[in-house]
């Protein structure tokens, strides 16, 4: 393991104190707990959106806390859920009197903790609703799918709807709309190392890749020889479009996401093929996002997400946002 750290066990809190030091004008923590991450900008009457999940995926999850997006984030240990108590404390701090939407990834530990937090909020008179991102096509049937980079589109839709003073039900519906329209396929080239474990949780040979691998190293559908970018793009898009068929003339937003160690150059190489294939199929591209949106520490690899557009989703997607990790004018 070769990482810039102090001690493995202080990895998360050292990272957080660095973030608070850099962005004290925009974010704060509550309950005397660095892991209870909240925006500084409260907006009277706005539905609050709280996310959360394990550390190791920056800018996911906390990077989307800010204007036009989310209000709070429970920060867990590396690849671990935050606790119910933390989520509850954040909810109390960010609630503006109009209820709280819990929007996070479809993982067992996170679901149990958000559900427990929701029960605690109920006792306190804070209304909550929940929705999970589950966009990873190759991880199984729709209801058990993992949530990966595509949650970005759910954040954008829910965040815009909430900022425009939509009700809790409307914000939930916006997130659901983006969820229904989004699919992702990802692949890995090298593993990552959990600091406290100190060793990689899987191995890939120098010339190998793992198609469909999850952002915690969950096994994919095949491991084999590294393909050309154009072939990888074609396989990912095939899987997505098989799951979410699209007709000629329809439009998508494209998200090419790097997993941490893959260069932005490579991501654009991938996008070159993606845009070509979509064009051949007669599918229009409304907007393209290329960069790191949901990583897995120093894992190499990428994911491709498509979000099928309609006029409302376009409006949500174009809505300006500003967080320490992500700005869109």
């Amino acid at each position: 393991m070769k990482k810039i750290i102090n001690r493995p066990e202080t990895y998360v809190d050292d990272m957080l104190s660095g973030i608070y030091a850099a962005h004290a004008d925009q974010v704060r923590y509550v309950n005397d707990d660095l892991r209870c991450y909240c925006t500084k900008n409260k907006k009277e009457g706005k539905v609050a959106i709280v996310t959360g999940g394990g550390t190791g995926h920056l800018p996911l999850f906390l990077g989307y806390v800010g204007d036009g997006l989310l209000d709070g984030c429970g920060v867990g240990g590396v690849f671990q859920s935050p606790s119910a108590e933390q989520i509850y404390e954040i909810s109390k701090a960010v609630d503006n009197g109009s209820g709280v939407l819990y929007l996070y990834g479809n993982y067992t530990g996170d679901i149990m903790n958000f559900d427990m937090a929701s029960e605690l909020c109920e006792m306190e008179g804070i209304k909550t609703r929940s929705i999970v991102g589950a966009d990873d096509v190759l991880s199984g049937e729709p209801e058990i799918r993992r949530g990966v980079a595509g949650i970005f589109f759910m954040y954008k839709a829910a965040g815009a709807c909430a900022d425009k003073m939509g009700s809790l039900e409307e914000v939930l519906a916006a997130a659901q709309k983006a969820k229904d329209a989004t699919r992702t396929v990802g692949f890995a080239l090298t593993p990552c190392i959990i600091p406290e474990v100190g060793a990689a949780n899987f191995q890939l040979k120098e010339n190998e890749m793992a198609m469909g691998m999850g952002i915690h190293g969950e096994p994919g559908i095949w491991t084999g020889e590294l393909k050309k970018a154009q072939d990888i793009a074609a396989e990912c898009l095939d899987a997505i479009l098989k799951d979410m068929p699209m007709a000629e003339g329809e439009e998508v937003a494209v998200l090419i996401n790097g997993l941490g160690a893959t260069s932005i150059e490579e991501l654009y190489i991938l996008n070159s093929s993606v845009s070509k294939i979509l064009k051949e199929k007669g599918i229009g591209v409304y907007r393209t996002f290329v960069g790191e949106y949901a990583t897995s520490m120093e894992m190499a690899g990428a994911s491709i997400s498509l979000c099928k557009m309609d006029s409302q989703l376009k409006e949500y997607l174009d809505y300006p946002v500003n967080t320490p990790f992500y700005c869109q004018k």
Partner: protein
Amino acid sequence: MGRKVITVQDLPQLFEKVAENMADHAAQLCEMDAKLGDGDLGLTMKKGFSALPDIIRTIEEEDLGKVLMKSGMKMNSVVPSTMGTLMGSGIMGGGKALVGKTEMRAAEFADFLTGFCSGLENRGKCRRGDCTVLDAFATALDWVKESLSENDLVLTMQKAVDGAKAGTEATKSMKPKFGKAAVHANAATGVPDQGAVAGTYMLEGMLHFVEQ
């Protein structure tokens, strides 16, 4: 021989025994977990149960049920992983069933187990036969009910451990519905559910305390 009753004051030592038993089996649990999950189950169980005695000592409360409820919640904050949350929810559920009680005898232990199972079901959204920790605790409860007329805490807890072992054994032939084990369903066949194994160690640790 052994104890006839567990009081609020006994709770820290009770869970110290559980923590000891988890520590003794931590390596085995981690190894089981590494085959299907992320390999930290033993560490999580050891960390969570080791934290309980101190958590309980800080709770100023005479009501056995309330102490258990609060400590289950705090334990979840220490280990918010899947199994940590399930165990915490089980203890909270068990505590809920004992609100108003100041001591636990055989009958109250049965109530604790009943509440523990409800806590697991509600939090994990699981049912018997889903190949989870619930299969250990629900079978433990069945066996405990059969021996309740004896009104003997040690005997009842022994029954719970034996029942949990039988319930765990039965998970070998079940098809996992949840978590990473479900993804690796083929690799999980013929192997007992690791959560059920951990649950059995919890009850075994409790038995070690009352046997003293």
